[in-house]
């Protein structure tokens, strides 16, 4: 069937599909049990959730609008009260992200990221293999320090500089970077909003920054190493060509970009100071008798606040430009819809179903949770899936405390699954958009799926194996 040429007609069709899916989801919900068991609130919550998933899939630019309307409907239908809505928007997570985004804005301004890129492109004796190793390591580590979207923007600037100068096809290197970014985003609590969400919501006790370093970081590095080997084989021709061009360049004694002195020590001091402060949140909370994760939010806010005080001439710029308000508002709406699903009892029904199927067996439930969230995150924003699954995992863990490793399964499934398709994560969408804008290159869905599926399988397998062995 030919796609409609009229954009208004296309939008009308998309809205019709969205309404149909929402209606179908509501109807299916009503079939779940006897009429007395299923309430109007549950049907409404599922329908709004389905609408938001459709909006995320079909029209990125309208998803926030759809979320606003959806939340208003839930409020009007009394599925969620105003006070519960405000509570469920997880303002502490949003403020943590605001603080981190402000910090990133300052580091960008003072040239820390420029220094990192410049140091790599002017490194002596650079070979194709060495460059790809550095690229993937950088892509894996950076999202754990900043966030995945900021990280991919910086790393792709490096990729584009090298590919432009050496006249190379950028797509393989962009895909390597994005896949390493999605994997690396699980390395720390700050790498992905999903990590923050899981960390703050985990039961019986919330997970700390230190818990992530101890448990998630090693698994991230193992998965990254496996993915690196896989990509080395898959893109061997492109890496060989890169190696040849780098050798020609070395022979001519010409670098890959300008080399200027950048006073980077101040930037490094701010970054490591901030990370140390955030990493110390748990001992600080214990010493000060604070609620868990209080300092996890307070630390980035303190750092951002101090930076804005000292750089007052750019303070507005950091808040207005460096902070991704579009995404943050969407997250708030999404958290509220998930809360509505939980409040209306939908997640209890699903949790019971999964726990029954999995017979509270972690050897069944761990791969099951990883598989469900990986496949789901391949097509829908991973935060949508995670925020929906949190109450389900919470329910399972409440019934069987030995199921606590499922929180890690949820994290790895959601983040690694993002590599499977081109629309699997925000980092993927940003990378595709940057490729399109700069080179008018479109990455075919199947081109991505071929390698994405392999990477997804390998990294998820590594994660499942390690989680099962590590958390006996």
């Amino acid at each position, binding site marked *: 069937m030919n796609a409609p040429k009229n954009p208004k007609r296309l939008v009308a069709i998309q809205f019709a599909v969205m309404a149909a899916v929402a209606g179908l989801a509501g109807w299916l919900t009503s079939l779940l049990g006897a009429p007395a068991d299923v309430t109007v609130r549950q049907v409404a919550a599922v329908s709004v959730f389905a609408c938001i998933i459709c909006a995320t899939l079909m029209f990125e630019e309208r998803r926030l609008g759809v979320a606003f309307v959806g939340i208003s409907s839930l409020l009007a239908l009394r599925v969620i009260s105003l006070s519960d809505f405000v509570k469920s928007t997880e303002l502490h997570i949003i403020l943590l992200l605001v603080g981190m985004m402000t910090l990133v804005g300052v580091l*960008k*301004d*003072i*040239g820390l*990221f*420029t220094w990192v*890129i*410049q140091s790599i492109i002017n490194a002596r004796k650079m070979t194709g293999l060495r460059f790809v190793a550095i690229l993937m390591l950088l892509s894996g580590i950076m999202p754990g320090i900043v966030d995945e979207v900021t990280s991919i923007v*910086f790393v792709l*600037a*490096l990729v*584009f*500089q090298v590919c432009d*100068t050496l*006249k190379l096809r950028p797509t393989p290197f962009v895909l390597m970077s994005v896949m390493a970014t999605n994997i690396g985003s699980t390395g720390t609590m700050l790498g992905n909003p999903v990590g923050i969400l899981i960390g703050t919501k985990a039961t019986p006790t919330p997970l700390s920054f230190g818990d992530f370093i101890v448990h998630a970081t090693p698994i991230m590095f193992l998965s990254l190493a496996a993915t690196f080997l896989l990509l080395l084989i898959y893109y061997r021709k492109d890496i060989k060509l890169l190696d040849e061009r780098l050798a020609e360049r070395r022979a*001519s*004694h*010409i*670098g890959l*970009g*300008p*080399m*200027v*002195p*950048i006073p980077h020590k101040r930037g490094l001091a701010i970054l490591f100071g901030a990370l140390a402060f955030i990493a110390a949140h748990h001992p600080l909370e214990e010493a000060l008798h604070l609620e868990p994760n209080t300092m996890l939010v307070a630390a980035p806010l303190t750092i951002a606040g101090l930076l804005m005080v000292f750089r007052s001439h*750019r303070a507005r710029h950091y808040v207005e430009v460096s902070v991704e308000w579009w995404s943050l508002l969407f997250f708030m709406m999404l958290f509220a819809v998930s809360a509505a699903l939980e409040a209306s009892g939908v997640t209890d029904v699903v949790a019971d179903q999964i726990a029954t199927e999995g017979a509270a067996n972690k050897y069944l439930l761990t791969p099951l949770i990883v598989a469900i969230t990986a496949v789901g995150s391949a097509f829908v924003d991973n935060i949508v899936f995670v925020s929906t699954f949190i109450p389900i995992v919470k329910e399972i863990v409440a019934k069987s405390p030995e199921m606590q490793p499922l929180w890690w399964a949820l994290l790895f499934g959601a983040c690694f699954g993002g590599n499977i398709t081109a629309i699997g994560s925000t980092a993927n969408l940003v990378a595709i958009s940057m490729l399109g804008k700069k*080179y*008018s290159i479109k990455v075919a869905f199947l081109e991505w799926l071929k390698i994405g599926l392999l990477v997804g399988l390998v990294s998820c397998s590594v994660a499942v194996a390690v989680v099962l062995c590590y958390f006996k």
Partner: protein
Amino acid sequence: MNENEKTASAAPQTLDSAAVFTEDEVLCHTKIADADKLFEALVGLLSARDPSFDPAAAVQAIRDREAASPTFVAPGIAMPHARLGDVSRTLLAVATSPDGIPFGPAGEPARLVILVLTPSTAPAAYLSVVASISRLLRQPTFADEVVAAETATGVEAVFRGAHRDPNLPPYVCAADMMGPPVATLRETDSVKDAIDVIIRTGFTNIPVVDKEGDLVGVATAQAILGICLPEYLLWMEDLSRYSSFEPFGTLLGKESSTWLADITDDETYAVVAADRPAIAVAEAMARRKTNVCFVTDGAKLVGVVTLKRFLHNVFRD
């Protein structure tokens, strides 16, 4: 509707000059030796045919245009013209002078003068005339035949005969607007050569050709700036600390040994085929957000249209 009106209403089709003027608008072997007087005489002929416009204003507009820059289109051939608000169609008058009438500040003699009045709201009308006359002048003996004709009927007959050429396309095409490339670079040149050419010519987009003369890309001043100040340097809030142009230093030391390919845009420049309608030139420049469009015959570079030239031709010429 007479034949002339049909031509005017069909604008911006090509000029059928033999239909736009008749023998009544021809001054054959005129003895007038002053350009201003010749303008008055030719405008007088046109005024007799179409009394809707003000002859004095027309003469003044022609003088003003001529004062801005002489309108020679080839040695010995001038095309004084004006765009008038009260002219409803293209009007054309011809004068021949075997001895030549002095034109412009240098007094260069014009043996063939083709005066054109066009409606101010129809830029394609004048461009059509210029394109058609230019094509006529490409016929080697055409101008000499017109000047040699001893009667107005003879002059009109030469034009009418020339228009039997079946190769005249029915629109103003890219080739009619282009000028020769001011400079070209070869694939084997270095960035130093490109910087030299850009500084010498003042043009910021220099076409790069291979040894067959085929267009392979464009070296741009912006690309040179991009090498020195890549995106990741521009992330920084303030580059004023590099007051000694440090980012440029790397290139300065290596410009002779840096390949031209480093600054050659081989994909996103504006290019159209010579026989495409001139509007395609504007479209290409608008879509590519550039102020220059390269014109090719096959893959071979044959000319350049700058945005300045395009705007001048359409709005002012």
